[in-house]
């Protein structure tokens, strides 16, 4: 039994944590939040220079060819730092979509650019409220042209390419398209609960596109893309959740009420113990998810959903109870508690809600037991 990260991976974690402590203190998050610029271009450049965008891309496509365990380590640290950069859109979603479904030519064209941070990618699925299904989807592709409106699309304002899920009249009801943003596309920023991560409405008015994978396979491919991304999102969530617990702990130890630290009252102690328990279960599920992702194991579907559900719940709990532990100050703009609370919800709906992933988990287990 060896259920632990390697020494090299732990070294990478230390390095990433130190780098983000220096280059992404919460003042950086606050700056983006105040200015509503959507991301911090300076931090993004530095992260690209560190090679993180190239982590899991094979060397033949200009990447570092490291594994997904390394990417999970980076994801956790970015989550801990509440980093205001388009990393998840470009790396967990667009890059993974190309790796999974791209033709050799598409990979050769785009992966080196994504690895080098010359191009930012994103993934456009939602078309307003509700789950995206073959019936609900209105975007259509025909003769290499795509038309429709996607909202919200993360990081659309800074993305050079978008992987877009369009509807299709046959197959599984969907087709994935690769769209270069520019001609025939327009981007209008939308406000979200977490302005430290930019989102927009993406209008496609007969924009030129290439099919990714085959027509009528879009939903099936999307499920795999989401399973893979879910593990990485879950690691970000666990990182953020742990940071929220650390913040609550530090505040409770320093804040006195009725002559003693509030951390000595059982109401607070049990609240923090509860955060620790949820974080620990989520982290352990994320370990399993990381293993399944890295090994491309058949268990990935169950492992990803398990990691995703427990990390979503842990982060929501830790971020709201962190505010509660701080009392009134926790609710002010001035304090940092808001970053975790905003990001927790943003991440929890980013690739499908808690309820959606609970359902996916049970569906995966049903399929396994029927097989």
């Amino acid at each position, binding site marked *: *039994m*060896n*259920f*632990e*990260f390697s020494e090299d991976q732990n070294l990478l974690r230390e390095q990433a944590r130190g780098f983000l402590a220096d280059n992404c203190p919460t003042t950086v998050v606050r700056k983006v939040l105040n200015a509503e610029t959507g991301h911090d271009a300076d931090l993004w450049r530095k992260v690209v220079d560190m090679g993180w965008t190239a982590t899991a891309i094979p060397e033949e496509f200009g990447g570092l060819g490291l594994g997904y*365990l390394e990417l999970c380590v980076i994801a956790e640290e970015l989550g801990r730092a509440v980093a205001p950069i388009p990393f998840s859109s470009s790396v967990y979603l667009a890059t993974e979509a190309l790796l999974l479904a791209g033709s050799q030519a598409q990979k050769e064209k785009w992966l080196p650019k994504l690895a080098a941070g010359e191009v930012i990618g994103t993934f456009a699925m939602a078309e307003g409220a509700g789950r995206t299904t073959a019936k609900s989807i209105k975007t259509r592709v025909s003769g290499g042209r795509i038309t429709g409106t996607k909202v919200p699309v993360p990081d659309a304002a800074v993305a050079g390419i978008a992987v877009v899920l369009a509807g299709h009249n046959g197959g599984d009801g969907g087709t994935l398209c690769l769209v270069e943003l520019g001609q025939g596309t327009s981007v209008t920023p939308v406000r979200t609960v977490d302005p430290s991560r930019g989102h927009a409405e993406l209008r496609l008015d007969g924009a030129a596109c290439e099919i990714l994978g085959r027509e009528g396979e879009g939903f099936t491919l999307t499920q795999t893309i989401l399973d893979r991304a879910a593990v990485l999102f879950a690691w970000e969530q666990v990182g953020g959740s742990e940071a929220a617990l650390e913040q609550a*702990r530090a505040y*409770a*130890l320093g804040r006195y009420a009725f002559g*003693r*630290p509030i*951390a*000595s*009252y*059982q109401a*607070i*102690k*049990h609240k*923090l*113990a*509860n955060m*620790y*328990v949820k974080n*620990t*279960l*989520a982290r*352990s*599920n994320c*370990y*399993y998810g*990381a*293993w399944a992702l*890295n090994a491309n194991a058949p268990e990935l579907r169950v492992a990803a*959903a*398990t990691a995703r*559900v*427990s990390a979503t*719940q842990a982060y929501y709990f830790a971020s709201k109870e962190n505010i509660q532990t701080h009392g009134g100050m926790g609710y002010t703009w001035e304090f940092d508690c808001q970053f975790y609370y905003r990001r927790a919800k943003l991440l929890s709906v980013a690739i499908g809600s808690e*309820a959606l*992933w*609970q*359902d996916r*988990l*049970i569906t995966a*287990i*049903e399929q396994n*037991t029927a097989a």
Partner: protein
Amino acid sequence: MDFSDSPKEAAFRAEAKAWLASNVPSAAELDGLDPLTAAKLWQKRKYDAGWACITWPKEFGGRGASAIEQVIWNQEESKFQGLPGGVFSIGQGMAAPTLMTWANDEAKARFIPKLASGEEIWCQLFSEPAGGSDLAALRTRAVKDGDEWVINGQKIWTSGAHYSDWAILVVRTDPSVPKHKGLTYFYINMKSPGVEVKPIKQISGEAHFNEVYFTDVRVPDSQRLGAVGQGWQVSLTTLMNERASIGAGGSAVGFDSVFKLAQKVEIDDRPAIENASVRAKLADWYCQESGLRYTAYRTLTALSRGAIPGPENSIGKLVGAPKTQDMASFAMDLLEQAGAIRDESLSEEMALYQNTYLSIPGLRIAGGTDEIMANIIAERVLGLPQDVRVDKGIPFSEVPTGGAK
């Protein structure tokens, strides 16, 4: 990261598997034996072949196996359904580690091998009517009389006292000092004159626990573990092991059983498993079980690299017991009005859910309540301060009691 055995672990597993395959008692062999006799038969067979308490040193009847090998053994042994056991867990899991740490060589040689072989069964005399979560508030007195101590008082919640041969015991030897400082630790023969065992009927109708009364029970000073007044420190050795061993138990009510039930019973003429709220609840429980499983894997990895199990292991019991309770309750809801039936010939799974519903409240209390476990995590994992203690530094005899004596 991988889950496969190392070559050494694989060899150990093969050896364990082979021995079990040819030595597990058959149903015919156990037929007609009372549970205690059956448990002793299987334990002795393991002991004679060197497969009992395998992590213990060879001189005490073990085989000096590693923590990982213990897990491998447990996995292989648990593949055989219905093996007798259970009665040895307190002696082997709590008394033995305490004896190994605190007893003299003579006592170790006399008692520990018989704990391994199952020839002698031990129980734990700690909790009292006035000392549960606040164990150090216990009141059973021991007074020195020559080379002996004379014990008077009462213990409670003692599992297996009615069939135990020996017991570990903590008592008050000095009420004039603060509570933790006036305790002393002994082991005693349960057949000593003046020891009286009375069963406690639980809400499930069973009686696993007992009250144990002491009337002028005489214990030789040679059966003291640690110094006079050092009883609290000795108790901590026992309690650490209690939490480790209680946390390890699984339950028949879990995701697999309730998932199957939800596939079988219907809600509005459709399988209950198709209902969104049923799916959401099952998913959450699956995530908890999975989280505990992989937390244990992380702990095992640390153990195999030489780490010592720490207070973070409290999580197993803190999550597991309330989960089992909620799942039993939920399973009964799925059965609607029939959920009330606790008749093994009529109920689903021979009344598994109803029986669990009635027995599980005890598991949330035994070996440290949920609230105590949360305190352990808060204080010893997160490093938060202890509660203010109004009895701190005060002679035990002057501590307010709310009327208890």
